[in-house]
């Protein structure tokens, strides 16, 4: 019997590491990967709660019962969106690389006021 909170704490730790990666790394691709890490942490939370709701049941505020499985569906959609985002994001990175010739995110500061 693993307490649910352990899963959630793991998720929080992964999220935190993702944020730290975003802040500390200078390669733009690595930053992108940290974003993927954050998304995965959130997925873990959803799955954990799906299990919780399935085990305990409950009512939505509108009166209908909570379907635990909808947590899985949500994760499904997150993955789809993550895939799309990864595709487009990497395309952008390639475009930026073509103009700036660098993958160092500190050099891409053309929006500076």
């Amino acid at each position, binding site marked *: *019997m*693993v*307490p*649910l*909170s*352990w*899963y*959630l*704490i*793991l998720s*929080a*730790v*992964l*999220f*935190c*590491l993702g*944020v730290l*990666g975003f*802040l*500390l*790394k*200078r*390669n733009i*691709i*690595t930053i*992108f*990967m*940290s974003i*993927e*890490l954050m998304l*995965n942490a959130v997925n*873990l939370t959803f*799955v*954990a709660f*799906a*299990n*919780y709701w*399935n*085990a*305990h049941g409950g009512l939505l505020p509108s009166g209908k019962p909570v379907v635990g*499985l909808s947590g*899985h569906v949500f*994760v*499904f*959609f997150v*993955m*789809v*969106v993550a*895939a*799309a*985002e*990864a*595709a*487009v994001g*990497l*395309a952008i990175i*390639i475009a930026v690389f073509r103009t700036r010739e660098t*993958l*160092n995110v*500190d050099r891409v500061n053309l929006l500076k006021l």
Partner: protein
Amino acid sequence: MVHQILFIIFALMCVAGAVNLLRQSHPINSALSLVVVMASLALIYLLLGAEFLAAIQVIVYAGAIMVLFVFVIMLLNAGAEERSTGSRIALIVGVPGALVLGVLVGWIMISNNKLLGSVAISPTDFGETHFIARLLFRDFLLPFEVTSVLILIAIMGAVVLGRKES
């Protein structure tokens, strides 16, 4: 007992992979660490009874998205990161912020430990594919179709952005 041990092993694998992602300077190493994280997360999903999702995680995330990342790294011939201090704010403000965030969330979880209850591995048909399919094609049909449009747009965007200027 077994459950707990399994969880701890997989959790450690996960965290180790994430930490390694941060510590490596070459992006390809970071990408491979991320694959390790995704694989261990798939195993954790199995512990939580989400069979379909575990499979999807491996196929889509580790198999497609990460491969895409690796392709791009190879295409751009990304080398090891250089050391530059572009932003002091990121270090001074961001790192404490992130840490505080993590600690707070963790603290909430811990203090509500009793409420959350616990998870057990039990032979249920909880995360089975046909149940998810039923939900997906019945209750969540519209979002499903919309995501297909989204993917189409993403494809178009990626093609346009990735094209060479002629």
